[in-house]
């Protein structure tokens, strides 16, 4: 085997002016996602090119399952809570329907009342859809609710077909599913087949023959009633890496359904789970390879380890489209606040909404924040999320950290900001907490507020009026 020398010489491009790469890292938006070439995936031994930039042009969108999968993992929401969250989803997704649909259980009186009240709000998006098991008896519920579309459980792995649903054969299973699909067609309702456990299924032996049949059946109905396919990575086994093999490969699954079975991109939806920390990357990968819909839940809350987080998908969407597209990003913060108010725990380090998602503790980082906020903040979180970058104080925070905290606390900008020299008494108190008192925990905002009042009375007097707006 010959060895090719791939090394190159790279010359320093000296400059006295920083190149901050602001075309990509435009602080007013989440960083833009750019591609400089095609994605190559070997399908059945042959290289196939995918253009990732097609996702920038296609009408990709987000669908929500907060009230279905999200609710399977927690005590039920009240009707009022669901109606409020639905209203917030509509605000977040904006008038272009970036959050296009959300699905509801239809089994109880409360389920149906929730659905009715959400629809009474009159939002065009997200469209309300249903979720039923693939049994004819359940289909009555969809008809009664007057929904245009419903998801139905069409489990696709032999774990489910034989061991859970107790079918005697794959043929019996497929026939049973197709009967319900037929019933949907007869009622003028679009069926969305949820290929449950598809990342552990026999693609050649069941998944593709089943989808082929669904596509043939769809030819008998108008286009807007044709079967949609939800690709359900039920156990989080999906892999986004190029070169991974079926049934775990996200690129290959999308290709097979889209190109070989002929399911149009706008009728393909990815539904993932986070058991291996891959849920968001897998969902975004599905977008890139030709699946238009990414299904998720608010804050990723769902069965076991959860689903793709809707708010993460929103930021990914903006990064791909390089535009807000009518999305009201600040609603993400409003939603998190509401969720906390109804005892929904959000870890402090959770991206975008955790208490400390943009909080820095190290003094050297706080120094960076003080001189240029962009150094340690991912984007303009004040503008996009109503969350200015914060500093939490520990023994590592230094006077820089204290100065940043005090300035943020008083809401001081530019020339009004207080230098670290003026906060030296508070900085000393912080250090003594650790060096003298042997403290082992971070200092709370409440403690600091009291110390600022005590040790910086002249500033407290001068700026406390500003606190009303904090």
């Amino acid at each position, binding site marked *: 085997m010959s060895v090719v020398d791939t090394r190159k010489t790279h010359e320093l491009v000296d400059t006295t002016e920083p190149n901050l790469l602001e075309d990509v890292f435009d602080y007013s938006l989440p960083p833009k996602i750019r591609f400089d070439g095609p994605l190559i995936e070997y399908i059945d031994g042959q290289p196939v090119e995918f253009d990732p930039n097609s996702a920038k042009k296609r009408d990709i969108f987000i669908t929500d399952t907060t009230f279905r999968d999200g609710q399977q993992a927690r005590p039920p929401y009240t009707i009022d809570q669901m109606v409020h969250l639905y209203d917030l989803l509509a605000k977040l997704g904006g008038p272009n329907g970036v959050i296009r649909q959300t699905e509801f259980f239809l089994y109880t009186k409360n389920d149906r009342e929730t659905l009715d009240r959400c629809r009474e709000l009159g939002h065009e998006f997200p469209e309300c859809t249903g979720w039923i098991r693939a049994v004819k008896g359940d289909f009555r519920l969809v008809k009664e609710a007057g929904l245009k579309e419903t998801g139905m459980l069409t489990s696709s792995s032999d774990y489910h077909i034989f061991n859970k649903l107790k079918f005697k054969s794959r043929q019996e299973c497929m026939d049973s599913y197709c009967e319900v699909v037929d019933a949907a067609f007869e009622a003028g309702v679009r069926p969305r087949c949820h290929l449950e456990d598809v990342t552990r299924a026999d693609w050649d032996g069941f998944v593709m023959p089943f989808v082929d049949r669904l596509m043939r059946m769809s030819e008998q109905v108008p286009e807007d009633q044709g079967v949609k396919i939800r690709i359900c990575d039920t156990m989080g086994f999906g892999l986004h890496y190029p070169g991974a093999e079926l049934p775990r490969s996200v690129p290959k699954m999308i290709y097979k359904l889209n190109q070989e079975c002929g399911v149009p991109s706008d009728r393909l939806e990815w539904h993932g789970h986070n058991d291996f920390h891959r849920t968001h990357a897998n969902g975004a990968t599905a977008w890139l390879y030709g699946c238009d819909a990414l299904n998720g839940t608010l804050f990723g809350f769902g069965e076991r380890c959860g689903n793709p987080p809707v708010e993460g998908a929103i930021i990914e969407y903006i990064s791909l489209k390089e535009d807000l597209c009518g999305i009201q990003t600040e609603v993400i913060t409003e939603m998190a606040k509401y969720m906390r108010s109804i005892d929904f725990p959000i870890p402090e380090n959770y991206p975008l909404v955790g208490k400390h998602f943009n909080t820095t503790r190290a*003094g050297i980082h706080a120094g960076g924040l003080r001189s240029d906020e962009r150094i340690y903040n991912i984007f303009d979180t004040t503008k996009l999320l109503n969350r200015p970058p914060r500093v939490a104080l520990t023994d590592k925070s*230094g*006077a820089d950290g204290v100065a940043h905290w005090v300035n943020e606390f008083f809401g001081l900008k530019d020339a009004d900001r207080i*230098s*670290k*020299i*003026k*906060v*030296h008494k508070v*900085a*000393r108190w912080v*250090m003594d907490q650790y060096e003298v008192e042997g403290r082992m925990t971070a200092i709370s905002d409440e403690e600091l507020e009291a110390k600022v009042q005590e040790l910086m009375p002249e500033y407290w007097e001068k700026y406390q009026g500003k606190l009303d707006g904090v």
Partner: protein
Amino acid sequence: MASVQDRVIEVTARVLQLDAGDIKPENNFSADLGAESVQSIELVAMFEEEFGIEMEEDAALAVTTVGSAAEFIEGICKEQGVEV
């Protein structure tokens, strides 16, 4: 009246809890006298209080030795019309 340098040494001794007699003009605040990060800030704050002046933060913190601090402060006092 004590010289600027003597007053700088007095303040330094108080903040760093050292004997003033052990502090020399050529001593580096950090390497020789052991001033840590927060103590450097305290030193600047105490110099401001001692001389009744305002110092620009970055410039003041860039001063490394006792002697150069005295020179720097003398310059600031002159600029700000403070008699020393």
